[in-house]
């Protein structure tokens, strides 16, 4: 039963990873930018919510409703002011830019919020402690279900947005051929900025749940980036539902690793990614890289 429990916990943890990863996947899918600051942007989102909660004592979920529009604006500005210029200098420059941005965000957070570890768990109310007791050894935590549900809804809405709406269609067209997109009347600059805005907002949403589920501090970002990155690679670049599967695989691997020995949690996740890279998907990625 412990193993069933581990898998259940892993699936829910996977929801968080998928939420964290979908923005990374979108940024890569639309603009071919690997945003190394994605994890730190999630932590920035967490601090934004924490600040609102700290000042107003409102529920973190309500605070997130205020913080997410701010994240959208930040994302739009990030693209116009920073990433767009870097993209013009070649495909590798955005990688360096976002690496630098990650360092800047971490140090700004350290400067403003001190290195203290924070959590929103205590402010989120009954959801953090609620659970369904299935048997003696198996209980399903309410928060885990909520995170998984939010992840599925977010990915579903994103998928519908990309396949059904005009802006989503323009985003796919621009991703496939930005030069041609301009020639049919699409403002690629605006499309890119909107994609980044969405990616940053989903990172903020992931930051919110990360902050409620456990703790965070100014240096938490890079670890979250690694998890998000692993989820995207396992699930396949550019596929949103793949990202969900990737997140869940990673979450389950970590939970099972932890069940064997608490020290093995992170290691188990890394081992899965190594296996994935060494087998089919790895060679697929290499082939794709060679074509591009």
């Amino acid at each position, binding site marked *: 039963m412990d193993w069933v429990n581990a898998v259940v916990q892993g699936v829910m943890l996977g929801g968080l990873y998928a939420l964290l990863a979908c923005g990374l996947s979108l940024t890569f899918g639309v603009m071919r930018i690997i945003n190394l600051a994605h994890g730190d942007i999630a932590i920035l989102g967490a601090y934004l919510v924490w600040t609102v909660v700290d000042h107003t004592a409102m529920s973190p979920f309500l605070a997130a409703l205020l913080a997410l529009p701010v994240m959208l604006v930040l994302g739009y500005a990030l693209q116009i002011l920073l990433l767009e210029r870097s993209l013009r200098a070649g495909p590798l420059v955005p990688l360096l830019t976002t690496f630098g941005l990650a360092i800047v965000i971490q140090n700004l957070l350290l400067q403003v919020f001190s290195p203290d570890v924070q959590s929103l768990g205590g402010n989120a109310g009954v959801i953090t402690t609620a659970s369904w007791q299935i048997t003696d050894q198996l209980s399903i935590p309410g928060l885990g279900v909520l995170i998984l549900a939010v992840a599925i809804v977010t990915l579903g809405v994103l998928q519908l947005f990309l396949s059904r709406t005009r802006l989503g269609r323009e985003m796919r067209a621009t991703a*496939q051929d930005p030069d041609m997109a*301009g020639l049919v*009347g699409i403002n690629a600059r605006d499309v890119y900025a909107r994609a980044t805005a969405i990616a940053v907002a989903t990172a903020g949403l992931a930051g919110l749940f990360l902050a409620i589920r456990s703790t965070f501090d100014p240096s938490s970002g890079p670890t979250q980036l690694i998890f998000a990155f692993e989820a995207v690679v396992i699930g396949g670049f550019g596929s949103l539902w793949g990202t969900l599967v990737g997140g869940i695989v990673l979450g389950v691997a970590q939970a099972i690793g932890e069940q064997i020995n608490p020290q093995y949690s992170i290691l188990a996740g890394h081992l899965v990614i190594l296996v994935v890279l060494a087998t089919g998907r790895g060679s697929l990625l290499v082939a794709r890289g060679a074509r591009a």
Partner: protein
Amino acid sequence: MSLLAVESLDARHGLLQAVREVSLSLQEGETVALVGANGAGKTTLLRTIAGAHRPAAGRLIFDGTDITAIPAHRRVRLGIALVPEGRRLFPGLTVEENLLTAGGRGRPGLWTVNRVLEAFPLLAPLRQQRAATLSGGQQQAAAIGRALMSNPRLLLLDEVSLGLAPIVVDSVYASLRLLIENGATILLVEQDLARAMGVAARILCMLEGRIVLEGAARELTRERITAAYFGLSRAADPASS
């Protein structure tokens, strides 16, 4: 007043100067063919007019407005559409989605998905199919249809017959003739001289980035165009270059 005026336009690819001091003008409703050897600068000229390539010098005047500094996506709104060399459909989008990318953001007008499918009946059954799965001729029809969706006042066509079977080229040109009869203004690049002379009222011949010959299609002979095409007249008369 002319619909499009190009004034001493220079365009470069790095150190290579692809278009040199080109000036030309198009009247509303006119069909002009641009001929010339590979590398003569035809595609670059078309891409510069459409806004996909920044000119190094010169001006572009469209319907009285200076559009030299206006980006491509806003030129579409003014009424310029390019059907690029190699079709360049969005491969992962369906035929309908490809058409819709250009609809609505362009000039308001008559063209809708349904009208394009009427004009190109071969596309009707392929509506929900991904563009990557289409044959060359189907892709070309979809690419022209996509350009029409923005209701252009000026249609730029780059080598629409390239890589297509002759019978498919016939049907593409039949649909072009329909557009011309309806008063479209067209600047097309065509390698096949007979086709160019058949469809266009005026011929421009480019050589090494310059327009070396210009005239009404019925007044120019094949020989004169061929001579200009390969630069033979220049060899005979060095003073003219």
